């Protein structure tokens, strides 16, 4: 994958994500983690190679099976005039009828997602009034109302305080365990990855590791992938 201007963002990456897996995607800044997610989502087209989603080429139909939570939602950036309820309801648009209104089923799914993410009390709040942790819960609820088979998170906890981070990761763990939703979490925090993920993918332009977390030898892999000595400190639990 090469960007216009010649920057090679990804090189010779071959991987497969299994159903029900919880994948931690790690790599240093500029490693191509966001690009890899964008390639999977069909937002960026690779110069060579291909992506198959659920065994098929990328299409609007199979993209609807994916829930995506970006690092900083554009709407948050633009101070979009939307309540939490409206923002979550937008996750139903790709699945909703062709009529310009939402069905009772759409509204029911939104209520259910708000309840699961424990943000019912925020539903009338403007999305511009939310904290970082609340924002990520809202956008996870928005991804969830599409009843996805695959959830993808791009550095979802940047700028989120430690307590909110812990609660957010616990929600992701539950979604993967209880609903069996395949999860891909792009993240910086290695301690969190080793605690949460069943599989680790480590990239820095090219693939350095793709395998079970239990087989991930941080001391051997990270210095090569990060191009500098990395000290690995074991945490008792994720922060």
């Amino acid at each position, binding site marked *: 994958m090469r960007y216009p201007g010649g920057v090679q963002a990804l090189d010779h990456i071959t991987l497969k994500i299994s159903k029900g897996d919880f994948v931690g995607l790690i790599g240093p800044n500029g490693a191509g983690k966001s690009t890899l997610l964008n390639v999977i989502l069909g937002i960026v087209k690779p110069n060579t190679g291909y992506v198959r989603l659920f065994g098929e080429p990328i299409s609007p139909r*199979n993209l609807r099976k994916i829930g*995506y939570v970006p690092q900083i939602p*554009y709407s948050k950036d633009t101070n*979009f*005039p939307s*309540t939490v309820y409206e923002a979550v309801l937008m996750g139903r648009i*790709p699945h909703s009828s062709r009529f310009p209104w939402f069905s009772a089923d759409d509204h029911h799914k939104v209520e259910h997602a708000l309840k699961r993410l424990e943000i019912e009390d925020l539903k009338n709040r*403007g999305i511009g009034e939310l904290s970082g942790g609340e924002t990520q819960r809202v956008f996870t609820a928005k991804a969830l109302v599409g009843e996805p088979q695959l959830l993808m998170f791009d550095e979802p906890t940047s700028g989120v305080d430690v307590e909110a981070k812990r609660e957010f990761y616990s929600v992701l763990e539950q979604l993967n365990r209880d609903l069996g939703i395949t999860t891909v979490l792009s993240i910086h925090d290695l301690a969190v990855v080793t605690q949460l993920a069943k599989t680790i993918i480590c990239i820095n332009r090219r693939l350095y590791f793709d395998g079970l977390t239990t087989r991930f030898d941080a001391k051997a892999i990270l210095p090569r992938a990060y191009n500098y000595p990395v000290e690995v400190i074991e945490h008792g639990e994720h922060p």
Partner: protein
Amino acid sequence: MLSSILSVYIVLKRLSLIGDGLAHTAYGGIAIGLAVGALQPRLVNINPYLIGGAIVVLGSIMITKTIRSARLSGDAAVAVFLELGLATGIFVTSVTLNYGFQLDALLFGSILLVEWSQIYAAALVLVLAIGAIIVFYKQLLYTIFDEVQARASGIETWKFDYLLAILAGIAVVVSIPIVGILLISALLVLPALSSMQIARSFKQTILMAPMFGLASVVLGMFLSIIQPHAAPGGSIVLVGLALLLAAMVIKKVKSVF
């Protein structure tokens, strides 16, 4: 009405100056229309607004295409087409000796010079355009809410970007006789900015924007009637700005209490 509804989409898409760009493109387009009429007397009956309208819609599509291809940022693309339209207009009118013809009406608008045929055409266009907004309400909403997320969930956002561009082009052509080229972007920006100060949800924003737009036009017209020397275009925009200021004050007061 159409401009007010569209203003919400345009402001949230961060294309607030597209109205200006398209209005100047319209100037070039209408100048070409007038030149065709002057140089080809047999085609003199072609309404220059029709040619201008077609060129504006084409210009709007080109601006969107330029932004989407990431060759230029939104503001730069608008600036390029603005200059292209203005330069074309000046060049064509000066070469064909039409310079000055209807220029005042074009630059500042004059609702009193609007013909019934233009009103009928505008009404038809409005119905079609608002119909398109209603039919594609959800997709347009998601496209402006977050285009990347919308694309990632399988919505073909490029279609709705172009739909928005075409509607913006139409709104500009329809609005030129009312406020003129120089003030057109006010109608495509102020109603949304005002309603966003007060509204707490998107639904409220999109319902309140036309109210602000209509209030600006009606009060602005009233102002130009009680003050006969006041040009309606300027009055309408000044009222729109006053309403924005009032909405900002209300927001501030509400945040204090």
